[in-house]
């Protein structure tokens, strides 16, 4: 199948636009040396023409097909590439459309697998209908693929679905559209008040940093605004006071601005947020200007995180995030978890989490009480350090002489409270199917990791922790947010508990894997005997590396093909495996 014909001019203009900006910049710089305006116009026109030709060739070459067990993409103008993605390995399928794309009826599709550093298949662009078809088709085929691996419990729940899928397996190519439309159950729809609240409670911490980066280059612009001490002296005011007030105003302005930016971006992002579930996957939709929709198979969910802070708790609200292994950390989109419910009533969040993952209540095992003294000491040392620095600054720099360097000492009152809450919020518990941890002084995060998702279990003790006879146990999963150090962790628990917890986690992982294996074997035997050869096929997948979940046939460089970055690594990993 082909891309949308309209994608040719759209892509061309996108590319030429970038080129044109460069040219205009070059032109404006070069006018001094007689680099004429006409030349710039000619350059832009040439760029557009070139881009059109290239994009037409790209369109001609680009082809995607659904084969029996893989989704294939052939692409590339100068360097050709064929990529095959097994349906069973697909983690998420996301569609996004910005305003212009919506006007033109175009959609961008991203298909993610767990391997590699970038999106495995970024299709730019297909028509809106084709996009939905791709999403549905992958889901349908994935279901067919998963049918053989299905657990007995799920299979028993849904004998009809299994039968239907069995039929469709045999007549695989005669794709029956009726089967594509699964019953979708609405899990969550954001209400206007919740959206407003999400906006109000969003503070974008990146804004101050951004402004700082912007304005450090323009200190000369700012300094004229700062009144000269001599000029201030004539008004009879204390110059340091004026400086201090200005600083305070600036700070407040920054906070307000960050808050406004955060609020606007939250509202724009979560406009019309809907979360639905079908039998096998979650589906979300959101966005005002750029519309996102995507699917997350239940099979691929790694971690469910519920977070709140005292404000939200007071108002009875919380935030929920679902993590899969699909999104590579550090990827261009920093949206993180796609199916994050920005804010909703606590009970609603809990019900949602239960729907998604099966929830249990229970109390947390907290770190030993003595550890509060450690937290208190840590806070006090930090405060002392900051105060010391400020004091040193006020001594060394003349202009800062009058600044109240002792101000941070006010934090001493807060330190015991923070230390207490740090201890209070910390904890872990072992449920029947999940390892649950909780952390955070202000923003309290509860993470639920199913035992069968555990990757490695890490138990670490720093020098200081050893002094306090405590340890930290980290349960690593293949999630994507985790790279920021957000793994589920039981922090500062007694060393004996840590050792016990470590072996307990290992045992539970083995038990739950064995359980799933048994269920799967039982399930496929019960469903139908035809599943057996397919099982053998899946058994052939054993030892597949995460990185080579997609197969890239010809080794290429990314040079000619921007939209789908070549991933040479899978081939390399293949070599490793063959050699071992």
């Amino acid at each position, binding site marked *: 199948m082909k891309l949308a014909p309209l994608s040719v001019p759209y892509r061309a203009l996108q590319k030429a636009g970038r080129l044109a900006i460069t040219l205009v910049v070059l032109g404006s710089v070069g006018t001094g040396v007689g680099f004429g305006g006409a030349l710039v116009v000619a350059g832009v026109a040439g760029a557009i023409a070139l881009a059109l030709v290239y994009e037409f060739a790209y369109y001609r070459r680009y082809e995607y097909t659904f084969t029996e067990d893989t989704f294939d993409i052939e692409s590339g103008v100068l360097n050709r590439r064929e990529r095959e993605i097994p349906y069973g390995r697909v983690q998420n399928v996301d569609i996004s459309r910005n305003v212009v794309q919506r006007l033109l009826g175009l959609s961008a599709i991203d298909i993610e697998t767990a391997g590699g550093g970038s999106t495995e298949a970024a299709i730019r662009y297909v028509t809106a209908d084709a996009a939905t078809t791709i999403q549905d088709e992958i889901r349908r085929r994935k279901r067919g693929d998963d049918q053989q691996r299905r657990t007995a419990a799920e299979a028993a729940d849904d004998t009809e679905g299994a039968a239907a899928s069995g039929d469709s397996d045999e007549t695989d190519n005669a794709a029956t559209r009726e089967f594509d439309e699964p019953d979708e159950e609405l899990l969550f729809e954001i209400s206007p008040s919740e959206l407003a609240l999400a906006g109000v409670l969003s503070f974008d911490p990146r804004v101050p940093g951004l402004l700082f980066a912007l304005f450090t280059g323009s200190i000369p612009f700012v300094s004229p605004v700062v009144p000269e001490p001599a000029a201030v002296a004539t008004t009879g005011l204390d110059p340091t006071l004026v400086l201090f007030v200005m600083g305070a105003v600036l700070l407040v302005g920054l906070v307000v601005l960050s808050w406004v930016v955060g609020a606007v971006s939250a509202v724009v992002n979560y406009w019309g947020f809907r979360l639905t579930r079908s039998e096998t996957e979650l589906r979300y939709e959101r966005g005002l200007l750029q519309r996102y929709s995507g699917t997350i198979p239940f099979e691929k969910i790694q971690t469910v995180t519920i977070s709140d802070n005292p404000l939200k708790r007071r108002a009875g609200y919380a935030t929920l995030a679902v993590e899969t292994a699909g999104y590579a950390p550090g990827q261009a989109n920093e949206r993180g978890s796609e199916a994050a419910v920005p804010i909703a009533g606590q009970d609603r969040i809990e019900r949602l989490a239960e729907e998604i993952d099966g929830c249990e209540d229970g109390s947390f095992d907290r770190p030993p009480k003595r550890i509060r003294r450690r937290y208190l000491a840590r806070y006090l040392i930090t405060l002392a350090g900051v105060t010391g620095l400020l004091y040193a600054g006020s001594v060394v720099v003349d202009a800062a002489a009058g600044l109240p360097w002792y101000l941070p000492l006010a934090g001493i009152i807060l330190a015991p409270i923070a230390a207490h809450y740090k201890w209070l919020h910390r904890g872990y518990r072992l449920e029947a199917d999940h390892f649950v941890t909780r952390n955070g002084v202000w923003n309290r995060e509860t993470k639920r990791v199913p035992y069968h998702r555990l990757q490695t279990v890490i138990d670490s003790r720093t020098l200081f922790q050893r002094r306090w006879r405590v340890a930290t146990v980290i349960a690593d999963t293949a999630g994507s947010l985790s790279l920021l150090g957000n793994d589920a962790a039981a922090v500062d628990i007694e060393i004996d508990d840590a050792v016990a917890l470590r072996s307990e986690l290992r045992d539970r992982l083995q038990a739950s894997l064995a359980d*799933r294996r048994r269920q799967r074997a039982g399930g496929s035997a019960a469903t139908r005997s035809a599943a057996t050869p397919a099982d053998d096929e899946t058994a052939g997948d*054993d030892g597949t590396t995460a990185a080579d979940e997609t197969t890239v046939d010809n080794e290429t460089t990314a040079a000619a093909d921007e939209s789908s970055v070549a991933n040479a690594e899978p081939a390399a990993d293949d070599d490793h495996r063959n050699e*071992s």
Partner: protein
Amino acid sequence: MNALNPRIRIIWVLRSLLGALILGGAATGIAVFRSVSLSIPAGLTALFVVLGVIHAILRYRNWGYVVNDDALYLERGVLTEVRTEVPLVRIQHVDSRRSAFERLVGLASTVVYTAGSRGADVTIPGLTPDDASDLRERLKGLAIDADGEDAV
């Protein structure tokens, strides 16, 4: 618990020597530039060397690994002690590799990869090349036996 090959200490000491020399060189440069006595950078370098040697010895003493029935277990770390359990089911692939330093003293390391995000690769240094390949083969075999589940 298996200890590493004692020769690994040579590599670690060499590495810290290199680091100490670079730092010492920089310190000497600053000292010459500001025309301060050279005894300060010399003392610093000596201190780094001593610290490096002690660290290498302690590190060797604390390192241990063992392959259990269902997991690879490692203990290591001087200031922060880390114990890692890598379930064999989760092993994605295994490398054995030899850096220039390692070839110098006739050693190799084995690297175990998982799909996890934090402990995604676990390196066991200080193995003889034969041991490294053996370990790689063994882990691979165990991983294949243990599997039956998507590793992600």
